[in-house]
């Protein structure tokens, strides 16, 4: 067994016990990061990571996260370390500041080894919209890792890092976690500061963890949550995130979202979810069907709100203050050519869609209406949580699909997020855990709870994890 097979919690324990050093851990992981068989990384900070490891190893007492390596989605700003958000628009860009959540983890002893690949500006569900490269699914190199945080998910599944950070706007943590057979969690909107997260859709974006165990995700989140004076929408965390210990689900009522178990869900995915529902019952949970009719409008609502916000958030990329720019001799050309040349097709599509949805004459029909549907969604979730403690559904309607399979049809790609989007619109937390295989590929189970129910989610997910004992090691990965 190699150091890379240890979970983060186990690595910290080994450090505490003096069985290894941070430098040894960093070196072991860096070797895999540098080999990068699944093309998960865009930038590697080997020198910075080793230097920090030596620093931590020299400390009289280890910080909470011990000196364990971590991968960071390239959507998060890291001072002096190139941050591109997967776009040519930020090629070579070295930020002048570090995102709050990354800083908090670094202060707690996490060591950033590199920046992970992603769909350009987090727009996509396969990481194929990266301007730089395709990341491969560790379970089948001919398939996508999901997206947009595909690099973060693949790097954890590939054991290049024990854990990583992603961002989730409509499913960008949960869906790749499902497709890569690992744990991914989207916290309550506002739980983690967005300061330093390169914005896609501000009212939906959240940073969250990837890991191979539920406990690791809980530990990472524990060190990120809480109000940040730099983010007006960040929240005081009530109490503390606890490491999950639950081994049963007695007393919990689980609602199975009927609308997300019907048409459009692959049979193999459905079967794996149904099996995990039986596991939940075995663990003492009461499983009941529940209807969230508005969730059927989730995709349409999301594809108005998110593009609208992105059209505004991405307007700052003009090649003047940072980023490459195309030389032009007048301002209009500078704007139009820089943006026309350096944004990829999906980003341009969404900017167009969002600009249209906000344009005068269309706002009321599109943006205004979508915000109202969102209200119905929020209300529907609130009512559901009066009846049940948790909602269960597949995370993704399908397992990992082949590279190139959906790139020609934007809407087919959008359907990958049909199960995760309603949760995002409602702003509540959700976790995806691997719950079985379909044709040899991982299936993700999504559990959602009311705002601030992260501890409940981690406990339930932990109990299921122990019961299912899913093997997160991709078959092709050398031991």
């Amino acid at each position, binding site marked *: 067994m190699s150091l890379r097979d240890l979970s983060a919690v186990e690595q910290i324990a080994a450090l505490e016990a003096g069985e290894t050093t941070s430098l040894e851990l960093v070196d072991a992981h860096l070797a895999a990061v540098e080999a990068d068989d699944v093309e998960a990384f865009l930038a590697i900070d080997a020198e910075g990571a080793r230097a920090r490891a030596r620093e931590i190893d020299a400390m009289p007492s280890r910080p909470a996260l011990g000196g364990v390596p971590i991968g960071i989605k390239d959507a998060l700003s890291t001072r002096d370390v190139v941050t591109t958000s997967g776009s040519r628009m930020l090629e070579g860009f070295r930020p002048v500041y570090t995102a709050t959540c990354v800083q908090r983890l670094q202060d707690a002893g996490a060591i950033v080894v590199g920046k992970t690949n992603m769909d350009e500006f987090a727009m996509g569900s396969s990481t194929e919209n990266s301007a730089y490269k395709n990341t491969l699914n560790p379970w089948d190199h001919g398939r996508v890792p999901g997206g947009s945080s595909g690099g973060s998910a693949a790097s954890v599944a590939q054991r290049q890092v024990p854990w990583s950070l992603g961002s989730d706007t409509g499913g960008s943590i949960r869906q790749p976690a499902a497709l890569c057979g690992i744990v991914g969690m989207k916290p309550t909107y506002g739980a983690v500061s967005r300061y330093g997260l390169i914005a896609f859709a501000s009212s939906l974006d959240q940073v969250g963890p990837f890991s191979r165990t539920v406990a690791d995700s809980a530990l990472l989140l524990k060190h990120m949550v809480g109000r940040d004076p730099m983010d007006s929408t960040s929240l005081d965390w009530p109490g503390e995130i606890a490491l999950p210990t639950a081994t049963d689900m007695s007393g919990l009522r689980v609602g199975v979202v009927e609308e997300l178990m019907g048409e459009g869900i692959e049979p193999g995915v459905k079967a794996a979810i149904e099996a995990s529902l039986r596991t939940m019952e075995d663990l003492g949970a009461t499983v009941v069907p529940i209807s969230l009719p508005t969730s059927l409008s989730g995709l349409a609502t999301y594809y108005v709100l998110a593009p609208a916000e992105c059209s505004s958030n991405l307007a700052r990329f003009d090649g003047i203050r940072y980023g490459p720019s195309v030389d032009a001799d*007048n*301002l*209009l050309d500078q704007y*139009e050519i820089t943006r026309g040349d350096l944004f990829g097709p999906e980003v341009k599509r969404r900017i167009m869609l969002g600009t249209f949805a906000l344009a005068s004459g269309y706002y009321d029909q599109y943006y*205004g209406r979508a915000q109202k549907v969102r209200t119905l969604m929020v209300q529907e979730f609130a009512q559901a949580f009066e009846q049940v403690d948790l909602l269960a559904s597949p995370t993704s309607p399908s397992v990992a699909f082949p590279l190139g399979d959906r790139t020609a049809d934007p809407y087919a790609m*959008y359907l990958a997020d049909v199960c995760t989007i309603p949760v995002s619109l409602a702003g509540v937390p959700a976790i995806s855990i691997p719950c079985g295989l379909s044709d040899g590929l991982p299936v993700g189970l999504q559990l959602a709870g009311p705002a601030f129910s992260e501890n409940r989610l981690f406990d339930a997910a932990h109990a299921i994890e122990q019961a299912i004992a899913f093997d997160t090691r991709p078959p092709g990965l050398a031991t």
Partner: protein
Amino acid sequence: MIDESTVNHVARLARLRLTPDEQQVMREELSGILEHIDAIRAMDLDGVEPTTHVIAVENVLRPDVPRPGLSRDDALREAADVVDGSFGVPRMD
């Protein structure tokens, strides 16, 4: 179906220069996506309030106390064009 002049107008608003091919593809793709989105235009939303913030928080304010900012070198270090300590931009016409 979204028409060509709408595509061009929106592209100008968004400051995106599209090639003629891109314009054509964009027109088709946007039209296709809008067909799906049109589902929400049929919903009865009378009397429903819009949601801007999904978690209700108010009055998040900052005391009027200066914080250290960037050195001028840091402010300008990623700029495409620096002219005497300022950001250079092409002429406007």
